[in-house]
């Protein structure tokens, strides 16, 4: 199912994307969690302890903060985080993998035909310029877990690994949260669709892969 367009099928979803109602907001840019004196479990940088020291190549310049994953029983879900490039050269996030998912994809949100926002896979990944940061957020760019077979419960953690163009990798631990926003269901290749369904249940009766994200 690579490289086909996944369209948002609810106007509300498109609106939320257009308005930029992301999970993290701009505050994270000026108030990085972990920078303050007060931190607690799960609030410090999401990059696993020690990984920065061991990481090589592009991963050594990558810093992940505020990582969370939407709780789901089974099926699909998304990971959201801020990826910062602390180095002096661009880094290129290519793919992700996780023990909870046999297949992960990079997704982006683009303006589709007719002005509606549409989701689509971005197999090329994301480039973050030197000193820049990229927000992966609900309703925007995100990393998807496909085929989750065991319940991912709120208040637990999920680990995944980001892989960069040069082969270097960065392990990430994300908090699992219940998230009720951006409930839209995306139907690959469809121009019209059924209404949204709560949670992550694939839409019955549609051909092809049904995707949804947090």
């Amino acid at each position, binding site marked *: 199912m690579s490289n086909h367009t996944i369209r948002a099928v609810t106007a509300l979803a498109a609106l939320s994307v257009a308005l930029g109602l992301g999970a993290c907001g701009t*505050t994270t840019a000026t*108030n990085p969690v972990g920078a303050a*004196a007060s931190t607690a479990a799960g609030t410090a940088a999401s990059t696993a302890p020690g990984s920065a020291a061991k990481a090589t190549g592009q991963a050594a310049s990558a810093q992940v903060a505020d990582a969370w994953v939407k*709780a789901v029983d089974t099926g699909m879900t998304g990971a*959201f985080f801020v990826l910062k490039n602390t180095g002096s050269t661009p880094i290129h996030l290519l793919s992700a993998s996780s023990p909870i998912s046999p297949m992960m994809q990079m997704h982006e949100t683009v303006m589709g035909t007719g002005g509606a926002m549409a989701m689509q896979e971005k197999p090329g990944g994301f480039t973050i310029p030197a000193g820049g940061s990229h927000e992966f957020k609900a309703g925007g760019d995100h990393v998807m877990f496909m085929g989750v077979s065991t319940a991912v*419960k709120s*208040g637990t953690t999920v680990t995944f690994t980001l892989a960069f163009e040069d082969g270097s990798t960065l392990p990430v631990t994300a908090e699992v949260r219940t998230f*009720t926003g951006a409930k839209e269901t995306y139907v690959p290749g469809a121009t019209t669709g059924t209404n949204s369904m709560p949670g992550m249940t694939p839409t019955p009766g549609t051909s092809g892969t049904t995707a949804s994200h947090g």
Partner: protein
Amino acid sequence: MARHPAPLPLDEQTVPGGAAEASSAAPSRRSFLGVGAALAGGAGAGLVGYGLGNSQTGVAPSAVAAASSEGAAPDAPWAGSVIPFIGAHQAGISTPPQAHATFVALNLTPGVGQDGLRRLLRQWTNDASRLQRGIPVLGDPQPDLASPPSRLTITVGLGRGALVEAGLADRAPGWLAPLPAFSVDRLEPRWADGDVLAQVCAEDPIILAHAVRALLLSATGIAAVHWMQRGFRRPVTSTSAMRNLMGQVDGTVQPVAAELEQSVWIGADGPDWLRGGTSLVLRRIRMDLDTWDALDPQAKEQVIGRRMTSGAPLTGTKETDVPDLAATRDGLPVIPEFAHIRHAAVTTAGQKILRRPYNFDDTPAAGSSAEAGLLFAAFQADPVRQFVPMQQRLAAGDLLNFWTTPIGSAVFAILPGPAEGEILGQALVG
């Protein structure tokens, strides 16, 4: 300094990047405990200072002053003020009380067990850590409502039901149970008990409402609201006394900072998972304002044992004067035998309770002009040792009972403060 009505308490810091100013000013009359928290090595003791103007923007105090002189009003002095979350004790106990409070009790969904309790506490730890700094929670549907932090505190406790659901009933202290029945009680089940408690306080009611909602979203699927009680009092910057809605100066007698270890914090003689924690007794006390208002001012003062206007005991001239319970005039006690303060009085630190009351003023029932009263929040190391004897004396002899009725009652074990990297309740379920 002169532009602020009163200095903020000393246990606070500004948000990261915000303007901070070391405060050498004396604490306000209401911040006695703040000094204690700082001096006692409580959370953030080394971070003395308070926000000036809009510290979220990092505007220097001088710039705020300049903006103010040009007509742009600075934000409230407490707006950027952050109360530390990490520490030996949770915030919101010895913290000088904020203007607004919501107490929300949840019941765990049957079957979630210890894993469910752990998942809830992990999320609340993360949420509270962020919200108290004015940072949106993960997946926050309304991130714009998270700041300015406005002295937000989130204080978490467990009722006996939480330990039962978690299979940990054998670790509950004996006092973690409903209080014994008092003769004056008219308790309503809708205000009783609860498995998990969050006391959320802030100077700004919008910040407060957002924080409560964030906590409830995190509880989705794990626990559901049992009751929610909202209260108010004066902002921390007020130089006026806290008054209840009967007009009385309220919350005068408190343990001083040096007495907190004996009176409030649970020590080595308590359960290991509660060391550094405390207990909360929350009593919802309805006031019959219609009949109270029929009394003349002198009668009201006899009932309470204090002057209505000044809050001074009938044997003194100012609020802070110690009542002389032995004083007589014409052979009769100056402070009557039936006076409230006579029965509430205790002499030793180990008997004292930390009172953090909030007023409530809800929709009146048909035929009534008020549904008002006091959310009497009392923190003490051991409710059976400290709260119960006092309440028994009040139930037996306090004339104030004619106008006040306890209609809600709940007891919670307030968890110790988390250390870096820990969750609330780490020693119980971590």
